[in-house]
């Protein structure tokens, strides 16, 4: 059995589906964030897979940038979520509804 591009794409699709389910069903802000990170990694797996089977290296370099940016994004998101937690000891996104109208 050889591993082909299809396997990378299948892994990417699985990660994407798990991530979307996480984003949709989680009410905890950190849970939602984890779901988003899974989708980002699904895209990373796809990029690396395509890059491996098309001969170009540019997408693999791009993935390194994506990893760093995802870390920066997660750090900022965690900081904001933590601030909300300090304010109301609760990070349920469904209960964040002070702004409506």
């Amino acid at each position, binding site marked *: 059995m050889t591993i082909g591009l299809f396997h990378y794409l299948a892994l990417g699709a699985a990660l994407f589906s798990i991530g979307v389910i996480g984003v949709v069903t989680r009410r905890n802000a950190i849970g939602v964030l984890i779901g988003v990170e899974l989708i980002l990694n699904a895209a990373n797996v796809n990029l690396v897979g395509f890059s491996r089977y*098309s001969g170009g290296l*540019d997408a693999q370099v791009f993935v390194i940038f994506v990893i760093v940016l995802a870390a920066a994004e997660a750090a900022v998101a965690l900081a904001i979520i933590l601030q909300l937690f300090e304010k109301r000891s609760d990070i349920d996104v469904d209960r964040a509804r002070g702004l409506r109208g």
Partner: protein
Amino acid sequence: MREFNVALAAPEWILSATILVVLFQDARTRWDNKGGLGRTTWLGLLLATGCAMLQGWFVDTPATAFLGHYGVDGFSIVCKAIFGATALFVMAMADTWLKRVDRGHGEFRLLALMATLGMFFVCSVRDFAGLFVSLELITVSFYCLTAFKRNDERAIEAGIKYVVLGALATAFLLLGIAFIYGATESLWFHKIALTEASDGVGGNAALLEFGLLLTVLGLCFKIAAVPFQVWTPDVYEGAASPVTAFLSMGSKAAGFVLLLKVVRACLGPDGDAGIILATGAWAGLFALIAAATMLYGNLGALWQGNMKRLLGYSSIGHAGYVLMGVLAFNEAGFAAVVYYLMAYLFTVLGVFAVVIIVNGALRSHAITDYAGLGRKSPFLALVLTCGLLSLAGVPPMAGFFGKFLVFQAVVQLGTPVAYTVAFVGAAGVVVSMYYYLCVVKQLYMVEAPEGDTRLDGLVVAKPLKAVLWVCLIGIFVLGFLVQPFVAMAQDAAEALMAAR
């Protein structure tokens, strides 16, 4: 070394150096001595904007640098001028606003500068990797800016909503880029062309279209268009007013610049060399997004009692109008988009300047509190009125001509879809007239309640006064002296079309 052509990126170098100097200054000074940061920021922004504009005369366009990853052409120069002006206006508003905040001056200026740097890069990127990195630079800076008032629960809540939706949109965008790369084996905008199926990935055209769909959806978050528009009113209300102003102009325009580049790279009315035909389903999709966005924004704005929420919904509506220009997929449409953004710059920032001044006195954004402004502060009321009328698209103002060009570009297509979108847009304009005029009525026809002296004797700081005047003049210049600016927008659109 010539292929690196380092000097071409001078505006970005200046901005980067400014960021580093401000970072250093911020580390060296005490919290109550941040005046120097403001001066450095101003100097850096002025130099960078001036340098970007000078490139229009002194650079033989189109030129590329960094092995072709960075490009300067007529389109990028006009867009950089727009972003530079936006940043300068916002910095003038922030100067006034920061006086009410005792901590975090350095952080605010740094984040605003980084967002501006991202916007400058957005104009010059020539591949999807650059697109993603520059977009993230803007987005992450705005996450922090939105939640900047960290003791204010509403700001934090706005920040959470922006981060969660923004991260999701980013993930979609990246997935779209991955599929486009899979279909075309290239991250370059100008090399997008379908390749032969590799290792059993059948249906490359479908893969490319699916990737493009996800990319466009991801960009819809930045421009506040359906289906990623729900954050807009909440974030506009919760974030500090200068941030909201920056968000409504800078972030949105950056989204449109990238959307234009991606659309130009992947779609074409002529269907040349492997790009997808921009007719049929794609025109329908953009028409659907534009129509839904205009309806959502304009109908949602009808029953808003809060000025910033109203502007949030109105900003969604305007994203719909600009999308009409995108969906024309031709030079006229793209020129209309550029002109619309120029007009929107003066219009929306003028309105926000007034909102910041009034909020400084009122500590409230309720529209009913604006009662009597026309008598108490005629100049502010005049700028606000002109801004709102320009947003509504009343003839002698800048906004009218933006809308006119957009509608013209769409109607000239002559397809049923185009007529339908134009009709929905026209209906949106009529609806928007109502809620903008309601605010104007509040300014002039309603008297402030007895004993309410909060709006008496408003003092406007000098930089803000300059912003007000420039915006007021800009609104009328872009409404009367249309020709040179239309020519500029057409040159930009021509450069964009030639970029393939």
